[in-house]
């Protein structure tokens, strides 16, 4: 560079710095004149304290999720955020150029997102809404099983049902698990199940297969789950995120509290985990679809069962990181959703698909048609997404279940499902939340006998081996209920 060019570049750099400082000052002035109506916020932009809604407004930082265009360097991103008086909170390592940015000027998150959308370097920008925690501060009471079974209950005698030629476990609550073996109990329809007992003659699962349960966390100490909980091997370094820090992720990751302990303080995630892989034939509680499997607990839904898009992405990012580090995580089970579409979340799920991870998602419980009224993440049109509707014990579409001839792909038992609950308990619950882990469990069973099956072929196998049901004609694209025995090609 000659002397003249050097001074020219220097002058340009000085001008850019002065311009950035000027913009920052303008926004601070704008903040000082802004009036904020905070009283009624239900979804609180990150850092806004809704508990002090009646106090004088004292806003903290709003957050946005921004994806910069390919080729935008970290230095450029930092220059942009600094110039806007914002702060780069976290970059999602495996989703190129996607980052969480905190505004420090007290602007509304929609305003900040719009500001970023106006920049030529930005592909998209969305507010990250942070959900207000339960204002009463109540955690669910795990002291008494609500409509299930306590560990101290006298176990009912195991009744083995003849005739299906399958393998039945000695778990005392197995008779309540109509989804696995429906003998017509409690006015059900005999045979309206996923044919698990026949599948178990071929495979009972494998601890070489890891299923990530992204949810409210999991009670990884539950006596019926602890043998099937993923534990970070000694050979694998603790999780480290350049922006978030280091985590002792012994059993997974908690994005809601930003720590390495995904203990469940709600119950929902523990229920889903038990459906996938409560230890089978251990004379205790229930059997999972897999008697043996590894469940990786991830937490982004708080104790009230709600969470943010950003934290969901953090969990997916964690799963991708662990996959890339050699953990054989092949499935993400996602029993949650909303009607809001986030491009950032879609990109994260796509990234998981690029790693060969099948993303199995609940279709939703609004009794509506997802073809017309989309529900996310189940409605992302991605090759690794499988959307699940819920069935009753009579093989009817559950009255609450969403459906969609194009956008809901498969159905599974999801009403009155008995499973694990925190504190060594068991409860019965309903929802597409419960149908989703049934399909996740069957996917894991398939991989236990076909570990090299690609994600695409795994998804296809699930869809090609359903039991067609009249009730699902025109309701789900496969027209059928998942069948574990057919899926693993049991005799």
């Amino acid at each position: 560079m000659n002397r003249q060019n050097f001074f020219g570049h220097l002058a340009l750099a000085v001008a850019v710095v002065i311009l950035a400082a000027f913009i920052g000052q303008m926004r601070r002035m704008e903040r000082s004149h802004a009036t904020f109506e905070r009283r009624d916020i239900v979804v609180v932009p990150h850092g806004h304290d809704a508990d002090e809604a009646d106090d004088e407004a004292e806003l903290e930082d709003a957050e946005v999720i921004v994806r910069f265009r390919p080729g935008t360097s970290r230095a450029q991103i930092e220059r942009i955020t600094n110039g806007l008086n914002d702060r780069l909170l976290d970059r999602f390592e495996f989703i190129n150029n996607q980052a969480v940015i905190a505004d420090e000027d007290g602007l509304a998150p929609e305003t900040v997102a719009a500001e970023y959308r106006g920049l030529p370097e930005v592909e998209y920008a969305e507010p990250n809404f942070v959900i207000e925690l339960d204002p009463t501060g109540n955690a669910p009471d795990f002291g008494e099983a609500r409509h299930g079974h306590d560990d101290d209950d006298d176990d009912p005698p195991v009744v083995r049902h003849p005739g299906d030629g399958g393998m039945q476990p000695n778990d005392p609550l197995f008779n309540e698990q109509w989804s696995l073996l429906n003998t017509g109990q409690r006015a059900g329809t005999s045979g309206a199940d996923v044919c698990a007992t026949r599948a178990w003659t071929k495979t009972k699962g494998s601890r070489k297969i890891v299923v990530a349960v992204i949810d409210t966390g999991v009670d990884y100490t539950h006596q019926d789950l602890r043998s099937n909980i993923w534990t970070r091997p000694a050979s694998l370094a603790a999780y480290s995120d350049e922006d978030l820090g280091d985590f002792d992720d012994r059993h997974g990751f908690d994005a809601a509290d930003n720590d390495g302990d995904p203990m469940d303080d709600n119950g929902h995630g523990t229920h889903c985990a038990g459906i996938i892989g409560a230890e089978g034939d251990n004379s205790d509680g229930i059997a999972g679809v897999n008697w043996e499997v590894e469940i990786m607990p991830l937490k982004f839904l708080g104790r009230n069962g709600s969470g943010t898009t950003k934290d969901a992405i953090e969990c997916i990012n964690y799963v991708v990181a662990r996959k890339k580090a050699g953990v054989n995580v092949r499935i993400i089970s996602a029993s949650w959703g909303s009607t809001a579409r986030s491009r950032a979340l879609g990109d994260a799920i796509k990234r998981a698909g690029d790693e060969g991870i099948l993303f199995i998602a609940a279709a939703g419980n609004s009794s509506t048609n997802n073809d017309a009224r989309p529900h996310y993440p189940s409605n992302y049109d991605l090759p690794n997404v499988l959307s699940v509707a819920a069935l009753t014990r009579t093989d009817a579409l559950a009255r609450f279940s969403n459906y969609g001839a194009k956008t809901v792909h498969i159905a599974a038992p999801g009403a009155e499902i008995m499973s694990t609950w925190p504190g060594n308990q068991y409860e019965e619950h309903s929802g597409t939340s419960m149908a989703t882990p049934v399909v996740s469990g069957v996917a894991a069973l398939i991989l236990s006998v076909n570990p090299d099956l690609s994600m695409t072929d795994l998804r296809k196998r699930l869809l090609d081996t359903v039991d067609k049901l009249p009730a699902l004609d025109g309701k789900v694209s496969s027209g059928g209920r998942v069948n574990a025995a057919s899926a693993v090609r049991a005799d």
Partner: protein
Amino acid sequence: MAMSKEDAVNRARTDLAGRLGVAENEIKEDSVEDADFPDASFGAGAAGEMSAQMITPGWRIRLRAGGDVYEYRANRNRIRLFNFKGANYSV
């Protein structure tokens, strides 16, 4: 501390009076009934809120004020105001 149904109704009444700027005795109880809600946010989630898709039992509380009916959804842990001027709110 967990809320009773009566606690939830009282909190809803207080909240609505505040929002409307009227006295609590101007808020009348229209109906209170047990209900199954579609998810952890009682089917009253807001933009960007992801919720567990499990049927959640609770109470549907309808309050009347000035000729209009307002719906709250609650269980023993939390309350939501449903579709108030087009949006859902946590209480």
